[in-house]
């Protein structure tokens, strides 16, 4: 038996970078300074000004103004046809049929994907869990979305996620890799070469290493599962964007609601399909016990992630306005928690 130790990131000390040096004698009478004294004072002042200027300049490199060198993720949203449905909720025993009916109610996949476009599909494949344990997106739901995108004429269909547990285990145990490949997707596992540094330009996150298909794709389809989450109360559409980032996760949790919104504002997906076939009611996001799982046989689809998350929150018996990232998402203009005020279609039951 061997053992490995996993530590958090090494964090630079926050102590003042300016060390106290030996004191130099200041001239008591500036008017009486000689030329060398004036030069010395002048150079000291210049160095001080230079220090501040350079410090600020380098600070800006890490700030929101640092948008020069790194790529920015494009806006993936599609135009909404006049009179189109905003949100569809479908209930029934067959997950794939629920997906088809929901997308059809929104106007069909052709509303979102044009022939030849490159599409990335982003389920939750974060955990070494089976579909029955409801920590990952249902593989039948994922496969049906892939089939619809392929049928719409997409030139390329990637499927990816930055798993929390070992990716090989997550992609296999979830059943998603096998199902997605069979349906026609190219599966991109989150190895080191799969990430590209981009500008996030968020309130908390300035830059980040993002899975390359999300950077390169013309269209992005989000397929989260609905589950309870120990820190953010729920994990659904907006939270699912944690799974496009590489690196250690501890920094994201310092202000989880704002970092969720930073990432959601960065991606702006084309379509979101919320998987509530089975939902995890407790001990999320990891789960494990089937005692915590509830069969809901529900799919919700739409373009407003805040509205979809508000609907998902109700499945977890949460008041949407008690969920911090839903409120922050509304404030950031990403959507409305008043999903009933949208043009919504409900089918099945």
């Amino acid at each position: 038996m061997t053992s490995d130790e996993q530590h958090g990131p090494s964090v630079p000390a926050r102590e003042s970078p300016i060390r106290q040096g030996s004191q130099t004698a200041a001239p008591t009478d500036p008017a009486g300074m000689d030329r060398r004294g004036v030069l010395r004072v002048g150079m000291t002042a210049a160095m001080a000004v230079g220090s501040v200027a350079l410090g600020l300049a380098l600070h800006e490199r890490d700030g929101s103004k640092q948008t020069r060198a790194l790529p920015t993720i494009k806006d993936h949203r599609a135009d909404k046809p006049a009179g189109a449905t905003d949100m569809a909720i479908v209930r029934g025993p067959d997950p794939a049929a629920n997906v088809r009916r929901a997308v059809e109610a929104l106007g069909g996949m052709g509303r979102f994907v044009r022939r030849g476009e490159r599409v990335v599909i982003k389920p939750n494949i974060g955990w070494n869990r089976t579909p029955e344990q409801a920590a990952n997106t249902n593989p039948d739901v994922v496969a049906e979305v892939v089939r619809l995108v392929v049928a719409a004429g997409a030139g390329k269909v990637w499927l990816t996620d930055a798993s929390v547990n070992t990716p090989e285990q997550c992609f296999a145990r979830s059943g998603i890799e096998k199902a997605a490949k069979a349906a026609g997707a190219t599966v991109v596992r989150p190895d080191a070469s799969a990430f590209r540094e981009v500008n996030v330009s968020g309130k908390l996150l300035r830059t980040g290493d993002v899975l390359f298909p999300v950077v390169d794709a013309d269209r992005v389809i989000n397929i989260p599962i609905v589950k309870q989450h120990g820190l953010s109360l729920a994990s659904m559409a907006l939270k699912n964007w944690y799974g496009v980032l590489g690196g250690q996760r501890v920094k994201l949790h310092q202000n989880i609601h704002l970092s969720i919104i930073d990432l959601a504002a960065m991606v702006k997906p084309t379509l979101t399909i919320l998987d509530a076939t089975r939902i995890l009611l407790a001990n999320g996001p990891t789960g494990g016990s089937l005692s915590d799982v509830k069969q809901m046989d529900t799919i919700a689809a739409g373009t407003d992630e805040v509205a979809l998350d508000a609907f998902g929150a109700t499945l977890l018996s949460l008041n949407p306005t008690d969920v911090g990232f839903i409120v922050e998402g509304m404030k950031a203009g990403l959507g409305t928690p008043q999903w009933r005020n949208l043009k919504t279609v409900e089918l099945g039951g």
Partner: protein
Amino acid sequence: MRILIFVTLALIPPAFIGWMVQQGLRAPALAAEPAGKARPSGAEADKTLLALFQGDLGGAKVKDKVTLYDEKGLFDYIDGAAPIFIQRHYRKLATADMASADGADIDCAIYDMAEPANADSIFNAEKSTTAKPVTDFPDAISGPMSFVFRAGRYYVKMTAFDKKAEAALPGLAKALKGKMK
């Protein structure tokens, strides 16, 4: 030429200071260390934790290696569930992929919570309302595909992925608990 050298040398300190400022501003704020009782000493406690995976494990065995996670690393294993452990003075997690005697996969996670009271607290906090107590095994609950118990300062979560592995969980739990006395 002398002016050029002078200007170059003069720029080194501000550039260094600027770099330090940048590094400082990029550093994420860390959660404050909880003020708990005296914690078990690190190396010795780690050794004890790792030893739980050695010897008789009720027919199960570690497939590859045991991995330890400290407070910051815990987010990389359980993501947003980490804070509820850290708030309860969590010390370290040891986790391993295991195989039952007939080769079924088991996920085993042993949390060293530093004090029995902390282990009791997290056990009660995570207790599923629909999971069942286990006969002749105090402080344990089992649900389909899951067996969870606490013993001393340890909180143990075992997950199965099929019926064969599920059947092996009580034996593994009994063996682990025996080592925790």
